[in-house]
Protein backbone atom coordinates (compact mmCIF):
# COMPACT_ATOMS: atom_id res chain seq x y z
CA UNK A 1 0.00 0.00 0.00
CA UNK A 2 3.04 2.23 0.08
CA UNK A 3 2.53 3.03 -3.56
CA UNK A 4 -1.09 3.98 -2.92
CA UNK A 5 -0.20 6.31 -0.11
CA UNK A 6 2.18 8.18 -2.41
CA UNK A 7 -0.52 8.58 -5.04
CA UNK A 8 -1.73 11.78 -3.41
CA UNK A 9 1.66 13.42 -3.39
CA UNK A 10 1.20 16.49 -5.54
CA UNK A 11 4.85 16.62 -6.46
CA UNK A 12 4.55 13.28 -8.20
CA UNK A 13 1.38 13.57 -10.20
CA UNK A 14 -0.63 16.72 -10.26
CA UNK A 15 -0.77 19.26 -13.11
CA UNK A 16 0.45 21.77 -10.55
CA UNK A 17 3.17 19.38 -9.51
CA UNK A 18 5.56 22.09 -8.46
CA UNK A 19 3.13 23.73 -6.09
CA UNK A 20 4.31 24.04 -2.56
CA UNK A 21 3.08 21.26 -0.32
CA UNK A 22 3.80 20.26 3.21
CA UNK A 23 5.75 17.22 4.22
CA UNK A 24 2.62 15.09 4.41
CA UNK A 25 1.66 15.82 0.81
CA UNK A 26 -1.02 18.54 1.02
CA UNK A 27 -0.93 21.86 -0.85
CA UNK A 28 -0.04 25.20 0.68
CA UNK A 29 -2.69 27.43 2.24
CA UNK A 30 -2.02 30.19 -0.28
CA UNK A 31 -2.56 27.92 -3.27
CA UNK A 32 -5.54 26.28 -1.59
CA UNK A 33 -7.13 29.69 -1.05
CA UNK A 34 -6.48 30.73 -4.64
CA UNK A 35 -7.95 27.50 -6.03
CA UNK A 36 -11.11 27.99 -3.97
CA UNK A 37 -11.30 31.62 -5.08
CA UNK A 38 -10.93 30.56 -8.72
CA UNK A 39 -13.69 28.00 -8.20
CA UNK A 40 -16.04 30.75 -7.05
CA UNK A 41 -14.92 32.90 -9.98
CA UNK A 42 -15.82 30.11 -12.41
CA UNK A 43 -19.38 30.25 -11.13
CA UNK A 44 -19.36 34.06 -11.19
CA UNK A 45 -18.46 34.12 -14.87
CA UNK A 46 -20.79 31.14 -15.34
CA UNK A 47 -23.68 33.36 -14.24
CA UNK A 48 -22.66 36.07 -16.70
CA UNK A 49 -22.27 33.58 -19.56
CA UNK A 50 -25.64 32.02 -18.69
CA UNK A 51 -27.32 35.43 -18.78
CA UNK A 52 -25.68 36.16 -22.13
CA UNK A 53 -26.84 32.87 -23.69
CA UNK A 54 -30.33 33.32 -22.29
CA UNK A 55 -30.69 36.87 -23.64
CA UNK A 56 -29.21 35.85 -26.96
CA UNK A 57 -31.49 32.83 -27.32
CA UNK A 58 -34.61 34.87 -26.59
CA UNK A 59 -33.73 37.77 -28.90
CA UNK A 60 -35.28 37.58 -32.38
CA UNK A 61 -32.20 39.30 -33.81
CA UNK A 62 -28.61 39.10 -32.60
CA UNK A 63 -26.83 41.53 -32.48
CA UNK A 64 -29.86 43.61 -31.58
CA UNK A 65 -31.00 46.89 -33.10
CA UNK A 66 -29.19 50.04 -32.01
CA UNK A 67 -32.00 52.11 -30.43
CA UNK A 68 -30.32 55.34 -31.55
CA UNK A 69 -29.67 54.58 -35.21
CA UNK A 70 -32.31 51.82 -35.69
CA UNK A 71 -29.66 49.76 -37.44
CA UNK A 72 -28.44 46.38 -36.31
CA UNK A 73 -25.24 46.48 -34.29
CA UNK A 74 -22.33 45.05 -36.16
CA UNK A 75 -19.44 44.14 -33.91
CA UNK A 76 -16.54 43.98 -36.30
CA UNK A 77 -13.20 42.65 -35.26
CA UNK A 78 -11.92 45.78 -33.58
CA UNK A 79 -8.38 46.81 -34.54
CA UNK A 80 -6.95 46.06 -31.13
CA UNK A 81 -8.93 42.95 -30.20
CA UNK A 82 -6.76 40.43 -32.00
CA UNK A 83 -3.44 41.92 -30.83
CA UNK A 84 -4.84 42.16 -27.29
CA UNK A 85 -5.90 38.50 -27.42
CA UNK A 86 -2.51 37.48 -28.75
CA UNK A 87 -0.53 39.30 -26.08
CA UNK A 88 -2.79 38.04 -23.29
CA UNK A 89 -2.19 34.44 -24.39
CA UNK A 90 1.52 35.26 -24.64
CA UNK A 91 1.43 36.59 -21.08
CA UNK A 92 0.32 33.18 -19.79
CA UNK A 93 3.51 31.72 -21.24
CA UNK A 94 5.71 34.44 -19.75
CA UNK A 95 3.95 34.00 -16.40
CA UNK A 96 4.61 30.27 -16.47
CA UNK A 97 8.24 30.89 -17.45
CA UNK A 98 8.50 33.09 -14.35
CA UNK A 99 7.10 30.25 -12.22
CA UNK A 100 9.52 27.74 -13.68
CA UNK A 101 12.34 30.25 -13.16
CA UNK A 102 11.69 30.71 -9.46
CA UNK A 103 11.11 26.98 -8.96
CA UNK A 104 14.70 26.34 -10.02
CA UNK A 105 15.93 29.36 -8.08
CA UNK A 106 16.69 31.51 -11.13
CA UNK A 107 15.64 34.93 -9.84
CA UNK A 108 16.80 36.76 -12.95
CA UNK A 109 14.53 34.68 -15.19
CA UNK A 110 11.70 35.12 -12.69
CA UNK A 111 12.03 38.89 -12.55
CA UNK A 112 12.40 39.23 -16.33
CA UNK A 113 9.33 37.15 -17.10
CA UNK A 114 7.13 38.54 -14.35
CA UNK A 115 8.00 42.07 -15.54
CA UNK A 116 6.97 41.19 -19.10
CA UNK A 117 3.72 39.66 -17.82
CA UNK A 118 3.01 42.77 -15.75
CA UNK A 119 3.61 45.08 -18.72
CA UNK A 120 1.47 42.93 -21.00
CA UNK A 121 -1.36 43.13 -18.48
CA UNK A 122 -1.17 46.93 -18.52
CA UNK A 123 -1.00 46.94 -22.33
CA UNK A 124 -4.11 44.75 -22.52
CA UNK A 125 -6.06 47.14 -20.31
CA UNK A 126 -5.00 50.13 -22.44
CA UNK A 127 -6.03 48.29 -25.61
CA UNK A 128 -9.39 47.36 -24.13
CA UNK A 129 -9.96 50.96 -23.08
CA UNK A 130 -9.13 52.12 -26.60
CA UNK A 131 -11.64 49.62 -28.03
CA UNK A 132 -14.29 50.95 -25.65
CA UNK A 133 -13.66 54.49 -26.93
CA UNK A 134 -14.05 53.28 -30.54
CA UNK A 135 -17.29 51.47 -29.70
CA UNK A 136 -18.63 54.50 -27.82
CA UNK A 137 -18.01 56.71 -30.83
CA UNK A 138 -20.13 54.29 -32.89
CA UNK A 139 -23.05 54.51 -30.48
CA UNK A 140 -22.47 51.22 -28.69
CA UNK A 141 -22.58 51.92 -24.99
CA UNK A 142 -23.61 50.12 -21.84
CA UNK A 143 -27.13 51.49 -22.23
CA UNK A 144 -27.51 50.57 -25.92
CA UNK A 145 -29.98 47.74 -25.42
CA UNK A 146 -29.32 44.18 -24.31
CA UNK A 147 -26.46 43.73 -26.75
CA UNK A 148 -24.45 46.64 -25.39
CA UNK A 149 -25.29 45.72 -21.81
CA UNK A 150 -24.16 42.10 -22.13
CA UNK A 151 -21.04 43.04 -24.13
CA UNK A 152 -19.81 45.64 -21.67
CA UNK A 153 -20.80 43.61 -18.62
CA UNK A 154 -18.87 40.56 -19.81
CA UNK A 155 -15.78 42.37 -21.08
CA UNK A 156 -15.89 44.94 -18.26
CA UNK A 157 -15.87 42.33 -15.52
CA UNK A 158 -13.09 40.50 -17.31
CA UNK A 159 -11.14 43.75 -17.54
CA UNK A 160 -11.67 44.27 -13.81
CA UNK A 161 -10.18 40.84 -13.20
CA UNK A 162 -7.20 41.65 -15.42
CA UNK A 163 -6.76 44.85 -13.39
CA UNK A 164 -6.77 42.77 -10.21
CA UNK A 165 -4.24 40.42 -11.76
CA UNK A 166 -2.00 43.32 -12.74
CA UNK A 167 -2.02 44.52 -9.12
CA UNK A 168 -1.07 41.02 -7.96
CA UNK A 169 1.71 40.87 -10.56
CA UNK A 170 2.93 44.27 -9.40
CA UNK A 171 3.13 42.98 -5.83
CA UNK A 172 5.04 39.92 -7.05
CA UNK A 173 7.45 42.14 -8.95
CA UNK A 174 8.00 44.36 -5.93
CA UNK A 175 8.54 41.40 -3.61
CA UNK A 176 10.77 39.72 -6.19
CA UNK A 177 12.96 42.81 -6.47
CA UNK A 178 13.17 42.81 -2.67
CA UNK A 179 14.47 39.25 -2.84
CA UNK A 180 11.56 37.70 -0.99
CA UNK A 181 11.17 34.69 -3.28
CA UNK A 182 13.34 31.63 -3.63
CA UNK A 183 13.09 28.11 -5.00
CA UNK A 184 11.78 27.05 -1.59
CA UNK A 185 9.48 29.98 -0.78
CA UNK A 186 7.33 31.19 -3.64
CA UNK A 187 3.73 30.22 -2.83
CA UNK A 188 2.45 33.64 -3.88
CA UNK A 189 4.01 33.22 -7.34
CA UNK A 190 2.27 29.89 -7.82
CA UNK A 191 -1.06 31.31 -6.66
CA UNK A 192 -0.94 34.42 -8.85
CA UNK A 193 0.08 32.35 -11.89
CA UNK A 194 -3.00 30.16 -11.40
CA UNK A 195 -5.18 33.28 -11.30
CA UNK A 196 -3.52 34.75 -14.39
CA UNK A 197 -4.05 31.55 -16.38
CA UNK A 198 -7.70 31.57 -15.31
CA UNK A 199 -8.17 35.16 -16.50
CA UNK A 200 -6.55 34.18 -19.79
CA UNK A 201 -8.90 31.22 -20.31
CA UNK A 202 -11.93 33.41 -19.56
CA UNK A 203 -10.80 35.89 -22.22
CA UNK A 204 -10.40 33.12 -24.82
CA UNK A 205 -14.00 32.03 -24.08
CA UNK A 206 -15.23 35.62 -24.23
CA UNK A 207 -13.39 36.33 -27.47
CA UNK A 208 -14.84 33.19 -29.08
CA UNK A 209 -18.32 34.06 -27.86
CA UNK A 210 -18.38 37.72 -28.84
CA UNK A 211 -16.33 37.75 -32.01
CA UNK A 212 -16.36 34.27 -33.52
CA UNK A 213 -19.87 32.96 -32.79
CA UNK A 214 -22.10 33.93 -35.75
CA UNK A 215 -25.12 36.13 -35.07
CA UNK A 216 -28.72 35.23 -35.89
CA UNK A 217 -31.56 36.83 -37.74
Amino acid sequence: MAGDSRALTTADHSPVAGLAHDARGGISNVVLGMLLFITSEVMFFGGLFAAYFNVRANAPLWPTINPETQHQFHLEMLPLVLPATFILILSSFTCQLAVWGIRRGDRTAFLRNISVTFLIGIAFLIMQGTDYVILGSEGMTLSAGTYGTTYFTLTGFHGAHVFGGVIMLGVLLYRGLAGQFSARHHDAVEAVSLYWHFVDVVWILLFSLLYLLPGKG
Partner: protein
Amino acid sequence: MHPLRHPRNAIFVGLLFSATGVVYWGVQSIAGWHVDFAGVTMLILLGVAMSILAYVLIAGSPND
Protein backbone atom coordinates in the same frame (compact mmCIF):
# COMPACT_ATOMS: atom_id res chain seq x y z
CA MET B 1 -7.13 6.36 2.04
CA HIS B 2 -9.02 8.75 -0.22
CA PRO B 3 -11.33 6.86 -2.57
CA LEU B 4 -10.22 8.78 -5.63
CA ARG B 5 -6.50 8.64 -4.73
CA HIS B 6 -5.06 10.31 -7.80
CA PRO B 7 -5.67 14.11 -8.01
CA ARG B 8 -6.20 13.83 -11.74
CA ASN B 9 -9.34 11.79 -11.10
CA ALA B 10 -10.99 15.03 -9.97
CA ILE B 11 -11.86 15.62 -13.60
CA PHE B 12 -14.35 12.74 -13.50
CA VAL B 13 -16.30 14.45 -10.72
CA GLY B 14 -16.64 17.53 -12.91
CA LEU B 15 -17.51 15.49 -15.96
CA LEU B 16 -20.57 14.12 -14.17
CA PHE B 17 -22.02 17.63 -13.91
CA SER B 18 -20.92 18.75 -17.37
CA ALA B 19 -22.33 15.58 -18.93
CA THR B 20 -25.62 16.26 -17.14
CA GLY B 21 -25.62 19.71 -18.74
CA VAL B 22 -25.03 18.25 -22.19
CA VAL B 23 -27.81 15.68 -21.69
CA TYR B 24 -30.10 18.46 -20.42
CA TRP B 25 -29.42 20.41 -23.62
CA GLY B 26 -29.71 17.33 -25.85
CA VAL B 27 -33.09 16.23 -24.48
CA GLN B 28 -34.58 19.71 -24.96
CA SER B 29 -33.18 20.00 -28.47
CA ILE B 30 -34.33 16.56 -29.58
CA ALA B 31 -37.78 17.05 -28.07
CA GLY B 32 -38.08 20.42 -29.78
CA TRP B 33 -38.61 22.29 -26.54
CA HIS B 34 -37.36 25.75 -25.72
CA VAL B 35 -33.74 25.21 -24.72
CA ASP B 36 -32.79 26.54 -21.30
CA PHE B 37 -29.36 27.84 -22.29
CA ALA B 38 -28.78 29.46 -18.90
CA GLY B 39 -29.26 26.13 -17.14
CA VAL B 40 -27.07 24.30 -19.62
CA THR B 41 -24.27 26.87 -19.24
CA MET B 42 -24.42 26.78 -15.46
CA LEU B 43 -24.36 22.98 -15.34
CA ILE B 44 -21.36 22.75 -17.66
CA LEU B 45 -19.42 25.38 -15.72
CA LEU B 46 -20.49 23.81 -12.43
CA GLY B 47 -18.59 20.77 -13.70
CA VAL B 48 -15.45 22.91 -14.05
CA ALA B 49 -15.90 24.33 -10.55
CA MET B 50 -16.54 20.89 -9.08
CA SER B 51 -13.41 19.55 -10.74
CA ILE B 52 -11.28 22.22 -9.08
CA LEU B 53 -12.96 21.62 -5.72
CA ALA B 54 -12.46 17.88 -5.99
CA TYR B 55 -8.83 18.50 -6.93
CA VAL B 56 -8.37 20.64 -3.83
CA LEU B 57 -9.92 17.95 -1.64
CA ILE B 58 -7.79 15.16 -3.08
CA ALA B 59 -4.46 16.92 -3.63
CA GLY B 60 -4.79 18.87 -0.39
CA SER B 61 -5.35 15.77 1.70
CA PRO B 62 -2.42 14.46 3.69
CA ASN B 63 -0.93 11.19 2.53
CA ASP B 64 -1.33 9.33 5.79
